[in-house]
């Protein structure tokens, strides 16, 4: 990678958050890790990030709200939404609001990294 890209993670499950962060750092990315919707939104709007990985169920502001607000300011920021498989309505809502990709939990971290790289052209 010519320059280090920054990826935002918004996930309130601490162990999953840390796992994804670890993997991303190993791939050479810089990581901003947040565990609630408000912190995620602040980072998404104020930091120079290459992509955001956002969980739907989070305290203060859920991932759908975060995505909605991101889209009004940064319409082209690549966003991957994470959610529980059984909640099909989440998926529709996420795509309608302009999520670029969607991964249902639980997932293999490799799968997330692969899709992220495809999305930001790091293959």
């Amino acid at each position: 990678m010519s320059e280090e890209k920054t990826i935002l993670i918004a996930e309130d499950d601490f162990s999953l958050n840390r796992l994804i962060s670890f993997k991303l750092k190993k791939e050479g990315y810089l990581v901003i890790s947040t565990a609630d919707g408000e912190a995620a939104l602040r980072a998404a709007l104020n930091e120079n990030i290459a992509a955001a990985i956002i969980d739907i169920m989070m305290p203060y502001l859920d991932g759908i709200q975060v995505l909605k607000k991101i889209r009004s300011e940064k319409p082209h920021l690549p966003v991957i939404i994470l959610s529980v498989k059984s909640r099909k309505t989440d998926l529709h809502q996420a795509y309608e609001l302009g999520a670029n990709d969607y991964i249902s939990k639980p997932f293999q971290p490799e799968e997330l990294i692969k899709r992220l790289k495809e999305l930001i052209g790091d293959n």
Partner: protein
Amino acid sequence: MTKYDNNLIKKLPSIFSNFDRLADILNQISDGIYITDPDRKILFWNLAAEKITGYRQEDVLGKYCADNILAHTDMAGNKLCGEDLCPLHKTMHENQKPGSPLKVKAKHRDGGRVVVEVSFTPLYSPEKEIIGGLEIFRDVSESVELEEQKARFFSSLSHELKTPLANMQGYLELILAKDAGPLNEVQEEFLKTVYEQEQKLSAIIEDLLDMGHFESTDFSYEKNLLDLSEVLNNVARSFYAMALKKGLDFKYDLAPGLTLLGDRERLTQAFNNLLGNAIKYTEKGTIELNAGYDRESGEIVVKVSDSGIGIPEDDQKAIFEMFYRVENPGTRSQGGTGVGLYVVDRIIKRHDGRIHLESTNGAGSTFTVYLPGSPDGGKES
């Protein structure tokens, strides 16, 4: 055709010539029963119907059932009342054969809804003229609610169990890939064991969740035109290495282009379970997977055979039941939940297929799956 003993009926003329006696009997029955004339005017309403719907006889007798009394809807809330929709009307006047009981929602007098299972049948005069209709309904609200609760429970359980396991697996993989620093040989060996056990636990939980999933009422199947040969090819490839690792021969012969209407994910799961079992219960010999088309019966035929421990005759009937496990005193326990074949059976049946088992204790098993389909990509009708 209803069968009855004519001699017996002859002895009971008083019941059938005297409606009071018949009404007494119908009032003893715990299913709701009502009788209408051909225009669906309610002529009789039994006590169980009162109890289930809250409407008393004096509330409904002489009224038309279309007068918004039960106002049947299907489970999704679509109207089933009115001439063009009423199932009772259809059985009386449109020659629609009374089918299996229908699950519908009916209005309760208090404004709520009860879920009932209903069947309809026309009543004929001796001259074969339609003189009315009969509806029988049973209150199933409680069991429907239980099913819904169960589905919700499994859905949340699924998340609660899978999330920590997925995290554990992720961290274990990191450690085993030495991403968190070097490991000595003993540490590596022990962690591999932890990893294997975690995988087993995950598999068991998947099984249990599948079962809950299949039991839940809102479970739906996709129905897409799909290439079963390709599905089977993928399944075969994913098990090939596992069979070789165990020292087994794995032969497969799949006719190309076998096509059916079905759910790719579910069918993959069914054949995964069958092949997984074949390998699990076979210590030496051969695993075979064959698929072809039987032109005579118009069915796709898939065979999964192994040379494994086999299934004792006594167990063969029950093997597709939930939680059933063959206890084999002579062999090492393989672990498992007894859900795998139950799931296979459910999936195949939902595709209007059937499954047949042939096995000799100690000398292998062959599972044959028959599925309606076509041999050439659906081009031949």
